[in-house]
């Protein structure tokens, strides 16, 4: 029973991951992006759980709970908490939505081309979905490069990280549990640090526009 719906479940989860990433490029409101990030965290946790059930490994299912707690609930909560505490500034990105979505399409095609070479010898269902992870990494880069607000850059970093986690789970069933713990802790702390710096930036400059960080140069 499970074997027949397994490919569809994998497809559903990775589809949700790609869709949320693309929507984040499209939407400019920070709060909307945070909600999408939360949905993405849930989709990632579901993906991990599906892989865990298929492989029959309890360790992977524990990891899926961890992913749910950190990426689905914890991080979006921290970010939303920060955003609501401040005046809402909408993002004025360097790319308009149409150009952004076109770039997302191109990046997705690119990652399928790259992945088809990388995983040529692997014909499993999960390996076929792995390009989505690469596409998310590239979309994370796109967000990092094109966004001007500190909070949006943070979201770009988290999409990048989700993409790496997706690649890890789809290509090798995930890294060992203690490493997953270490990696999650590191990402959580980086987000907390950037959040503290964004707060200091707001205190000093009155806003969190990254473009004003241009004093240091040679």
């Amino acid at each position, binding site marked *: 029973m499970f074997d027949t719906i397994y490919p569809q479940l994998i497809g559903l989860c990775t589809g949700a991951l790609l869709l949320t990433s693309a929507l984040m490029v499209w939407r400019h409101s920070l709060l909307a992006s945070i909600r999408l990030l939360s949905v993405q965290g849930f989709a990632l946790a579901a993906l991990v759980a599906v892989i865990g059930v298929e492989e029959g490994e309890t360790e992977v299912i524990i990891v899926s709970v961890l992913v749910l707690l950190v990426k689905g609930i914890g991080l979006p909560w921290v970010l939303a908490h920060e955003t609501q505490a401040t005046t809402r500034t909408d993002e004025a990105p360097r790319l308009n939505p149409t150009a952004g979505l076109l770039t997302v399409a191109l990046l997705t095609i690119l990652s399928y081309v790259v992945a088809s070479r990388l*995983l040529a010898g692997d014909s499993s269902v999960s390996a076929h979905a792995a390009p989505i992870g690469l596409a998310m990494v590239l979309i994370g880069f796109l967000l990092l490069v094109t966004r001007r607000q500190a909070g949006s850059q943070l979201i770009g970093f988290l999409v990048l990280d989700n993409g790496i986690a997706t690649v890890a789970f789809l*290509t090798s069933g995930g890294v060992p549990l203690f490493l997953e713990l270490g990696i999650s802790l590191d990402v959580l702390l980086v987000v907390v640090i950037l959040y503290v710096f964004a707060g200091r930036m707001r205190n000093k400059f009155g806003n969190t526009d990254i473009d004003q960080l241009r004093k240091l140069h040679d």
Partner: protein
Amino acid sequence: MSFALWTPLAVPVILALLSLAVPVPALRRLAPVASSAAVLGSGLLLVSAVLADQVPTLGGGLLRADALSAYMLTVVGAVGLVSTWGGLGHATAAPARFAGSYDALISVFLAAMSLAVLADNIGLMWAAVEATTITTAFLVGHHRTRSSLEAAWKYVILGSVGVAIALLGIVLIYAASRGTGEPTLSWLVLSQAGLPLDPVLIRAGGALAVLGFATKAGLAPMHSWLPDAHSQAPAPVSGLMSGVLLAVALYAILRIQTITNAVIGPDFLRIMLSIAGLLSLFVAAALLIRQRDFKRMLAYSSIEHMGMMAVGAAIGAAALPAVLLYVLGHGLTKATLFVISGRILEVEGTPRIDGVRALLVRRPGLAVPWLIAMAALIGFPPFSIFFSEVGIIIAGWTTGMGAVVGIALVLLLVIFASLTRLTVTMTIGAPAASVTAGAAVAAGAAVGAGAAGAAGAAGAPAELAGPDAPAAPPAEPDRSAHGPRLPLILALGTTAVVAFIAEPVGTLLARAAAVLGGIQ
């Protein structure tokens, strides 16, 4: 001997907790020094174990000290000791509420670096390197000025994106190891020859991992965080980052190179590292020519030396002992220089090179160690950087990479000239009258001391400054070192003699290089 594997991790963490709890600043300031001493002591113990043909392991092989790890741990401890001990005189100027966290973060940083070199697992090493980004972020932003906030933001974003790329690479290497039956991230297993690893995945994973750690190592074109972070961080932290963090990132690159070399041969990473190394040398040469800030000058010099080490890594087996000696020599010299630069910044109140002139006449206590350390950095013998650079260049000629080391040599000469000019500007010459009233007073002192060239030029302004500063100008030049002298003497003394000690240093370097497949 395996207790020496957990002491460099546990002692700094305990000291970090203590420095958060102890309210006495004088005691708290000693915690990072004690942490470094613990790391250095463990490193030396492990080195002695390695030389006695033991390989201590702990935690089911998760922590493992082969010759390379033991050597790197010693470097971490030694550079840490010079930076923290030398930085004792440095005022942290932080709000009292955060004073304890400064010392605690340095101790945690040392523990994370020790974990990175001792872990026999790429993933664990990755987590440790990322943890150093976290600890150093607040240290870079410690002064809480606008520029230090900018430097810290850029550092965290670039640093964590860089190591995220490395994580993607590590994930691909992990996926490549499925062919061995039991997927693994152990260095020991992965660097064995003849494993059935997927070459396509290893190539992509190795390239991404090296790219990511190169960001952390400050190699061009991913170097842009480095000058900002190094110039804005408190001086002891700059010394730690330059001498320890960059070195550990290079260590990661060397280990990954061993894995890829066994599967796809050395050519692929050789090209990548040669380009990154030469580009770093070029960037350093271009930006050192007109450098105005002496801490940024040291930062670009770090990019230069990391570039040279990358060229050495690209050359491979023959150059590896020289590269490893380079790591120690550069770490100690750069830590010394950053410590002195912090003291100069504190007494002169400006980071600008043209704001600090005639240091040798006015403040010989600072200028003499600065000149000696700059000579070591530029590559004068008997300091070990000279021997490392010569070793890399000779190894390059003999392995048919003459073009690469030829270009590197030309760029090194340009950097040599720039650094010499900047150092001369700072230290030698007559005191300029127009700098500050304080400098003018010091100029008067120079006249009193009979500095021949200074007499005519500086005499009149000193008289002008007289009414403003009625207190009698100091008759003697400032001979104080403005902080502990011993760590600087020990560091420079070590770099001066280390290249001449064949036993045990030479043996250790040869064994460490053999771990990387250096000597078959």
